[in-house]
């Protein structure tokens, strides 16, 4: 079971520094928090013309939350707000075990590797933190109306 969770890919993304920075031209900053375990991230987005030009994050958390955030940022860069919202829903659906078709999940790219978290109820919140934060960022900025 563990080897399906703590994979090379997850290790790489959780330790990667590339997306862990502050954005000079951030248009949205959103904090996400799991009060039960203390995972805390700040997601920064640079949105122009309804497109996520760049994204980055800061904060602390477990390997699963950090890897998930890192993979989400890789995935979202260059996407429109509409696409971003749809992909976040797809990811959350996958983690909750509602969407299991691998073809459908292909769009999530590397983030699809977190599919096995759906069998670990205690870690679902870790995996979805960044994606819920993204969703909140888009909502709070009124981005869902702009798109």
């Amino acid at each position, binding site marked *: *079971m*563990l080897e399906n*969770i*703590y994979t*090379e890919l997850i*290790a790489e993304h959780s330790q990667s520094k590339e997306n862990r920075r502050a954005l000079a031209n951030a248009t949205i900053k959103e904090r996400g928090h799991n009060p*039960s*375990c*203390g*995972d*805390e991230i700040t997601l920064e987005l640079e949105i122009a013309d309804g497109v996520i030009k760049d994204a980055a994050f800061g904060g*602390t*958390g*477990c*390997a*699963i*939350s*950090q890897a998930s955030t890192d993979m989400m940022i890789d995935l979202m860069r260059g996407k429109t707000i509409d696409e971003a919202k749809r992909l976040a829903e797809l990811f959350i659906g996958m983690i909750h075990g509602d969407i299991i078709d691998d073809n459908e999940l292909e769009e999530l790219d590397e983030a699809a590797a977190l599919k096995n978290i759906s069998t*670990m109820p*205690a*870690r679902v919140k*870790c995996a979805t933190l960044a994606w819920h934060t993204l969703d909140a960022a888009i909502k709070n900025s009124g981005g869902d109306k702009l798109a």
Partner: protein
Amino acid sequence: MDKNFLNDFPILHSRMNGHPIAYLDNSATTQKPESVVRSICGYYGGCNANPHRGVYELSVRATKVYEDTRRKVAKFLNAKSAREIIFTKNATESLNLVAYSYGLNNLHAGDEILITIAEHHSNLVVWQRVAQATGAKLNYIYLDADGNLSQADIDKKLTPRTKILAVTQISNVLGLVNDIKKLSAQAHEVGAIIVVDGAQSVPHIPVDVQDLDADFLAFSGHKMLSPMGIGVLYGKKKLLEEMPPFLSGGDMIEYVEEQTATYAELPQKFEAGTQNVGGAAGLSAAIDYLQNVGFKTIERIEKDLTSFAIAELKKIPYVELYGCDAANKVGIVTFNIKDVHPHDVATILDSEGVAIRAGHHCAQPLMKYLGQNSTCRASFYFYNTRRDVERLIEAVQKVRGIMRLA
């Protein structure tokens, strides 16, 4: 050689992820021996009726179960009278009762509440709310380098302005035992009352409320072999009598008119609505079990497990321990593994059958003070064995490899 307690706890023979379970999360809740489960079943199977109300024999039996437990708790804590024992849901509700009924009615702007940075949220957030509602100021006692309360800070902040000193007897994160007797003497000297959170102490060490001179003391049954949903507030009779009721409803009244009511005597004044009599039956059996084992044995076993765990963890270079150098320590070992988040540690330990707690342990201000986001916590009870500790150590040694950090 100690009795093999495991035979009394069938759940400890079960497996977790294919391994025998090493249950090291006793500060969160303990397991229940068969005698406690039997006592609860016995109540519902043979005595269940609404106590205090019915005139028929079954209701009298239920009342007896409930009131006998109250007397047993009073003796267990060495309270002067069973009227000083209020049943609640848990320590959290007990502390809320004191905060709302005593705090809101006795504090005014300019008064001060003093608590410690090592409090559980249940003995912290309630006082924030009392402070906000009354205009009182909430002050904190901080810790010395070894994790113990700073005496200099106590001397500076416990003043005639302090009306309430609320303090845990044993920290649920660091396991350090505070000298309540000394604190209560010092509090009384300046005219403050002392509220003691006994959630982590009553299950592990003998607690004598008269010797401590505690004004209030709260604990939960479920952290000492009892079912969830039964807790206790001890309060000095004089204080309880002067306080208005906390919750209102049936069983806590004397006469009810359209616009007014008079209230029942202690302890019913604070026990509105049908109470958890099955829980009380369980608590009664739990106290019997603990007294049979004896606190001397409990303390000896837990001390041995704690020092064994600390010594073994100290041998691992990438493990950082918190509050583990103090002598006054009971049953709790808090640590981190370098570069691995506690949540990942707990998941890996879980896969080895070892149950620990990871997170902020309902003590976020303390975590911040320690400079940690969260920690791993192993907490012991007398039924744990050295083998459980070895299993913890073996699992800890696997963590960095699985996280590809080795």
